[in-house]
């Protein structure tokens, strides 16, 4: 694929069984962006405009305009029920799985509206991966957990390539050394923290561009949490990460930008350093300092 990448460019043609094309597609924009990017600036990876979400008659999200920057960690914070997870789930159309959920507005991934008809949702979820609150490995071996995605997306031509992807993903997730001698054991036999890193390995095995994380550390102990946070920091070099967290300290530690949600509205968004030392909005101030009634 040699044509220049442009926001108008629709990659539907690339959504094919051809593994080379699928792999190239994710590489080209990144390489170009890196070349074009001025130092310290980050392009917008996901742009959301006036996003509303309804569950039946009930509106859960109101006109959210938010830009997610490429290769940055964006933390979504706010009290329970504020809409941050709902927003996160819009970014890879996970809300489609809920019958009564309806999404309006525009969500642009690299300039393409992901809610447009004709978008392959399975392909979208390969580009925008997700890690959940509770580690949820498949009831299969460690190897199979990671190999599953690349296999169904046709990312490997043979066993050797698949092995490479699995090993590489486990290495990137910081888990390989701990599991290399027991790849055939069930993933569910690992510790909670290891299971979560296995899920992260599984998510990155399909070479996503964006990784969504919904409270990835809330079921983990401090050591496992620290490992996942360290991993998030490393993954930032190659991936755009959006993380929902209830831990203010975690948001402050891992993210470069923070967005505060409250009652379905985006209250404030800005550089994390500023948000946690000198937020503008009273609601953000009250929430992060533990004053919300």
């Amino acid at each position, binding site marked *: 694929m040699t044509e220049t990448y442009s926001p108008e460019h629709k990659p539907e043609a690339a959504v094919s069984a051809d593994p080379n094309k699928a792999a190239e597609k994710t590489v080209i924009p990144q390489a170009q962006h890196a070349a074009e990017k001025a130092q310290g600036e980050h392009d917008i990876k996901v742009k959301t405009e006036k996003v509303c979400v309804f569950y039946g008659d009930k509106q859960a999200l109101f006109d959210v305009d938010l830009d997610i920057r490429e290769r940055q960690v964006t933390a979504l914070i706010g009290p329970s029920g504020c809409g941050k997870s709902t927003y996160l789930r819009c970014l890879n159309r996970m809300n489609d799985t809920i019958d009564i959920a309806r999404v309006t507005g525009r969500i642009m991934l690299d300039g393409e509206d992901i809610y447009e008809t004709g978008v392959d949702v399975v392909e979208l979820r390969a580009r925008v991966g997700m890690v959940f609150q509770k580690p949820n490995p498949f009831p299969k071996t460690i190897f199979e957990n990671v190999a599953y995605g690349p296999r169904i997306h046709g990312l490997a031509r043979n066993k050797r390539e698949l092995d490479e992807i699995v090993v590489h993903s486990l290495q990137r997730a910081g888990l390989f050394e701990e599991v290399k001698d027991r790849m055939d054991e069930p993933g569910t036999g690992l510790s909670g923290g290891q299971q979560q890193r296995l899920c992260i390995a599984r998510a990155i095995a399909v070479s996503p561009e964006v990784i969504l994380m919904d409270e990835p550390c809330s079921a983990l102990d401090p050591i496992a949490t620290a490992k996942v946070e360290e991993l998030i920091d490393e993954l930032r070099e190659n991936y755009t990460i959006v993380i929902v967290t209830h831990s*203010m300290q975690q948001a402050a530690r891992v993210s470069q930008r923070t967005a505060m949600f409250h009652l379905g509205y985006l209250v404030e968004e800005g550089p994390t350093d500023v948000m946690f*030392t*000198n937020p503008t909005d009273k609601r953000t*101030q009250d929430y*992060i*300092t*533990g004053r919300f*009634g």
Partner: protein
Amino acid sequence: MSSSDHIVTSYDEELRELARSIAEMGGLVEQQFEESVAALLTSNTDLAQQVVSGDRQINRLHTEIEEHAILVIAKRQPMAQDLRETISAIRISNDLERVGDLSKNIAKRALAIEDQRISQTLRRGVDHLSSLALKQLKDVLDAYGARDTDKARAVWRADDEIDAIYVSLFREMLTYMMEDPRNIGMCTHLLFCAKNIERIGDHATNIAETIFYLVTGKPMERMERAGILHTM
């Protein structure tokens, strides 16, 4: 202080306690400074002794505030205004502790020159300088209590006057020393005292800057200080 209370009430209590300790320390330091200058100008050795030994109490408060603030950070991981509140308490108590030390130093010098007569002009000069610095210290502690940035700014600006008076006092003492070498011993002590007082003014402006940061979350813009260099 903060607009509304925390969900955890003991957290509020801890922050209030910090502010209370700063107010207490501020009051003590003010008194120490006032008395050290009084001891100097009236050659009152008892008062000077009292100031010297009183510094221990200030040091103790300083340590307490620091420990308390560290505990708040460890226990609560304060954010936003709470974080600024905690960090400001540490910074202000450092400044106040230094003011305490400088006052103690003035008191020690008062003891060193107790038997010498200080000329009326110099006495008046030091008196004037110290009353300005004392006012600065009082005002800045009021500004802290009220979280009043206007007042903090006013303190910040008024420091130039102290610097100017210090410089003129410095010249005057030089003249005295040149006129009669027997004045050199006494004048040198007095000069150090004047320098201490000028430094106390600087600590008041430090505190003013901290208050500004505490309230607004931004550093006070560094205006070019016109004219006076006080590197002497």
